[in-house]
């Protein structure tokens, strides 16, 4: 899995991101910089195409002065990190009990049919990735999904159609 040739790659955060990372590392005591890893991985995902390649994880390990394995371990544990390439728009759709009581399964089916993909898959044009997510803390406002940092709540098929259209236009 580890490609030796790429460890010297030219992956680099933007200067303002590096400044932000510096601020975050300072929130922890001397020598405890590893605590910043979850937040930095979120930033890495945002800056390097929505997923964490081995190169990106190795870069983060160098920034934090920790072993690459310490980054892989974390990246593979948490569901918000993508370890494989994903579409431009990642849809996290909540399919946990409370949302299902108010019709989440029907809306999920509708998204699957509209995009012609199942959870875990990406549309052939590379636009959308659909992920089935567990309870996102919006149970009173279901059915719901998350794209980026935004929650879309009280979904209907019509709302979903408009949403998909908006994102498609925004990214093409």
């Amino acid at each position, binding site marked *: 899995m580890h490609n030796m040739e790429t460890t010297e790659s030219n992956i680099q955060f933007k200067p303002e991101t590096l400044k932000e990372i510096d601020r975050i590392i300072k*929130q922890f*005591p001397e020598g*405890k910089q*590893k*605590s*910043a*890893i*979850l*937040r930095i*991985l*979120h930033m890495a995902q945002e800056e390097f195409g929505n997923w964490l390649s081995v190169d990106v994880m190795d870069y983060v390990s160098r920034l*934090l002065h920790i072993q690459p394995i*310490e980054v892989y*371990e*974390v990246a593979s*544990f*948490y*569901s*918000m*990190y993508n370890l494989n390439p994903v579409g431009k728009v990642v849809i*996290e759709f909540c*399919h*946990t*009990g*409370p949302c*299902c*009581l*108010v019709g989440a399964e029907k809306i999920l089916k509708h998204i699957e049919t509209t995009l012609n993909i199942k959870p875990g898959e990406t549309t052939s044009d590379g636009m959308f990735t659909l992920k089935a*997510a*567990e*309870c*996102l*803390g*919006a*149970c*009173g*406002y*279901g059915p719901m999904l*998350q794209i980026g*940092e*935004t929650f879309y709540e009280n979904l209907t098929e019509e709302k979903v159609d408009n949403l998909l259209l908006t994102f498609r236009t925004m990214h093409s």
Partner: protein
Amino acid sequence: MGRKILLEKINVEGINTYDVYRKEGGYEAVEKALKKMTPDEVVEEVKKSGLRGRGGAGFPAGMKWSFIAKPEGVPRYLLCNADESEPGTFKDRYLMEKNPHLLIEGMILSSYALGCNTSYIYIRGEFMWILRILEKAIAEAYSNGWLGKNIKGSGFNLDLYVTPGAGAYICGEETALIESLEGKRGNPRMKPPFPAVKGLWQCPSVVNNVETLASVVSIINNGGDEYAKIGIGRSTGTKLISACGNITKPGVYEIELGLSVEEFLYSDEYCGGIKGGKRLKACVPGGSSVPILPHYLVTKTAAGEQRLMSYESLADGGFATGSMLGSGGFIVFDEDQCIVRNTWNFTRFYHHESCGQCSPCREGTGWMEKVLHRIENGHGHMHDIDLLWDVQRKIEGNTICPLGDAAAWPVAAAIRHFREEFEWHINEPIKCLEKNYGLVKEPELAV
């Protein structure tokens, strides 16, 4: 109208900003504590208030604080649990989003009480936008002298930071939260040692829920005795309840503990009854981990008494006929819902969220998921019900952390109260795919 403490000012325009929060009496509790009270006196007030942890377990907050070890020269940490991932629970989010300074003020008071000079809010990664709201409010608190060095000339220093998770229910468990905060996988630790002795970076630490910490503000402003007058018996104060499922008005409500379940569920001030005039089938009153109650045990106990929204009344009857207040995630099922399907769904959740360290939890949740899936889809056998019972019983109490119990209890309760619905799925493998079972019968009372 019930008494409001946490949500009293929630609709004041601009309460999320420092200026408005301050004008409305914000940070007066900190002023009072730092000027007139010793840390031990703050702990004493919280003890007197009877405040119990709002994260799920309901452990008395003041008592938890008094357990913190105080070795010379070792820092102590207060960690706010804002992981909020228990299905059905969405109350902390509401409080943080609308009134972030209330949590910050509660954290300053609590850090002072515990002697912590650095504190963290650990928030679930999906709430990144709330993290930004909190960071903005924290910056305002710093620039107005409520955080940082020598707060308001008291000599007390406090730094407060927010740090995100990244999608893992288990990080709400306090030792997993600590591991995650250390930048590792969220694997719960063996206890002892307890966090109060060895927590974050092996230093004494206290983990408290958002709502618990926010409640400290009113306790300091008005005194622990005043707070203890609200509520009922050992369930003092108010509680945020996040109500969802098949009700007319889902949302976050602050109730005085002791309100009747009937009023909460059916009055227009709260849930507004079952949506569309349907009948109630069941209710999970405290988040997905607590036992489900069939319709006939929701508003009254097995003894025929009125069921109240309190730690004691919801637990009345033990697991045989009661449940738990838990995190306050109130999930309502109407007559059209399928209990087997929901139990399968919840079990899939726990299987997905198991950290995998203990085999009963890792394997047991997956096994139960599989068996429930086949019953739900008309491929079950009668002995599957006993198998499920056996597996859940072998998980409960045999794991490192309570996620195992949390996975076992919903299965046990569903079989206990809805066995006839499980059996119907097995006896009617075709019909169960087309329609739902409806209400279960209330068992005859043995006289």
